[in-house]
């Protein structure tokens, strides 16, 4: 089981003091959060990709390359990489390059993106979202596995005798997750390729997450990659912790009430009851997270959203201390104890990482 953080990279005013960080501050804060994640023993840092304010991470491999140079063990990932509006050729090249620089500590998560104008800004049409995800990923999959590719499709210029460089590290492409909240087509896509399926699991009732994961597991087995239990599942989560749960609720409420995505809607109490958001003590977070396993089965990656809605960096770093010191060690032990033999503990690691572990 891998544990980590994923960030949207929003620049949001702190509702408690009206202060808005600059883009520069926010970008540096994201790096500080990644470094902290490694320091407290988390496994994964994943960044979103956005091309509109108030979000800063438009260039994920630039950021992840920088973090790669300043960390030793952290797996660098995305949440998500826009498979619809990016050129799959450029994704193939950028992430292969990152893989080399990070010595294999790279995977990525494909997503479609739901901001309408981004599609035409990048020459695409949001109504073709699923078709773009299917065609672009089919090409990307080949570019990483075939040295010379001849290809023709609907959405980009044809390729004749094309070789994406550099080739993936040791000939093994980065592991790919496919993220989707409510499109069964994407669960089906992940199952078809034997890739991982990640459910963001933040804004929707848990029953919905459970049904999407169940579909993915069934189809993963259908396509002959293993049993349903062996399918590679990742979940999101969202927590805010203090040792006294009442303190957590008091401190987080103004951020919740004004959060860009769900603020000014349901109350904090309703939202924590109806969705996986947990605001309380470390013990409550442990219990809730173990509950995810009961809903979707043994899974391989848990990412937490820790740094949104205008929370100051100092608070986020404190949250990561609690997560790394008090929550994740217990969860690691429990998930490992409960995991049946034959169910993988993580997504397949890159051979370079396995070698590193063997020589350590």
């Amino acid at each position, binding site marked *: 089981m891998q544990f980590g953080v994923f960030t949207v990279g929003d620049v949001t005013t702190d509702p408690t003091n009206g202060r808005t960080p600059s883009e520069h501050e926010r970008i540096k804060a994201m790096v500080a959060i990644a470094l902290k994640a490694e320091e407290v023993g988390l496994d994964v840092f994943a960044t979103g990709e956005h091309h509109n304010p108030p979000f800063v991470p438009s260039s994920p491999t630039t950021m992840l390359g920088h973090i790669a140079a300043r960390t030793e063990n952290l797996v660098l990932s995305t949440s998500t990489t826009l498979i619809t509006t990016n050129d799959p050729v450029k994704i193939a090249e950028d992430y292969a390059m990152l893989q080399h620089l990070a010595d294999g500590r790279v995977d990525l998560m494909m997503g479609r993106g739901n901001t309408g104008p981004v599609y035409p800004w990048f020459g695409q049409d949001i109504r073709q979202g*699923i*078709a773009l995800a*299917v*065609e672009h990923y*089919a090409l990307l999959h080949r570019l990483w596995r075939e040295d010379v590719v001849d*290809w*023709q*499709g*609907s959405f980009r210029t*044809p390729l004749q005798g094309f070789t994406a460089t550099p080739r993936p590290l040791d000939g093994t492409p980065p592991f790919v997750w496919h993220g989707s909240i409510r499109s*069964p*087509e994407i*669960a*089906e*896509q992940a*199952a*078809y390729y034997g890739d991982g399926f990640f459910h963001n699991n933040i*804004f*929707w*009732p848990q*029953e*919905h997450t459970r*049904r*999407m994961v169940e*579909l993915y597991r*069934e*189809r993963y087995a259908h*396509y002959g990659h293993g049993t349903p239990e062996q399918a590679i599942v990742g979940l999101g989560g969202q927590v805010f912790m203090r040792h006294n749960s009442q303190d957590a609720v008091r401190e987080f409420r103004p951020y919740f009430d004004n959060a860009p995505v*769900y*603020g*000014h*809607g*349901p109350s904090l109490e*309703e*939202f924590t009851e*109806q*969705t996986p958001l947990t605001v309380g003590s470390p013990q409550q977070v442990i219990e809730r997270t173990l509950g995810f396993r009961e809903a979707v089965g043994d899974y391989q990656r848990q990412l937490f959203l820790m740094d949104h809605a205008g929370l100051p960096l100092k608070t986020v770093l404190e949250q990561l201390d609690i997560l790394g010191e008090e929550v994740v060690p217990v969860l690691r032990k429990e998930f490992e104890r409960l995991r049946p033999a034959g169910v993988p503990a993580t997504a397949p690691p890159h051979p370079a990482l396995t070698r590193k572990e063997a020589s350590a």
Partner: protein
Amino acid sequence: MTTATGPTAATPSSTAVPSRITRITVVSAGLSSPSSTRLLADRLAEAVAAATAVDIEVVELRELAVDIGKHLVSGFPSPALRTALDAVTGADGLIAVTPVFAASYSGLFKSFFDLVEPDALTGMPVLVAATGGTARHSLVLEHALRPLFAHLRAVVVPTAVYAASEDWGGAGRPGDGGLAERIPRAGDELAALAAGRPVAARRTGKENGEKDLAAELVPFEQHLARLGG
């Protein structure tokens, strides 16, 4: 939401398929209690029940007003709103009644139907009705309600019913085209369409986030086969 069985439920008329009870869901957007919108809704439901064997469920949007606002903001329904949405999409026929606000359906009425999944009302027989202070707004049925349900690909019955305050005092003489005449006619029209609707056309009523993912799955080979090139 309340459930009631129509007065003639035990004696199905000739228009009904004998083996089943027609499910009618009534959506009433009246804000006061008692409300003339609900009064009209109940009269229409009784008219449908007089024509065929029905189970009637009533969704009072007033009780769901806050939940509707929260769903618009958060993207998912509360359990109570989910039940109401399922009752609408899972019905054989719909009676939709709104007060006229600012020359159209009320915002609450529109917000509720904004939350119904696209395609979930395709082919659904719908009886539209509205209430207002004067008869001057009666065409709201034709320029606002009928186009809304046409957009949702529902089948709106020919007779739409408008009740102005003065209509509640109408004498109801034969041939005057008043409420006493329009309500049974509209009820008959909805009963015929809803009762005659094939069982196969029935939705599960789970279109709002609970649909059967596996049943609607398109195998990935078909996605790949559709690609150009």
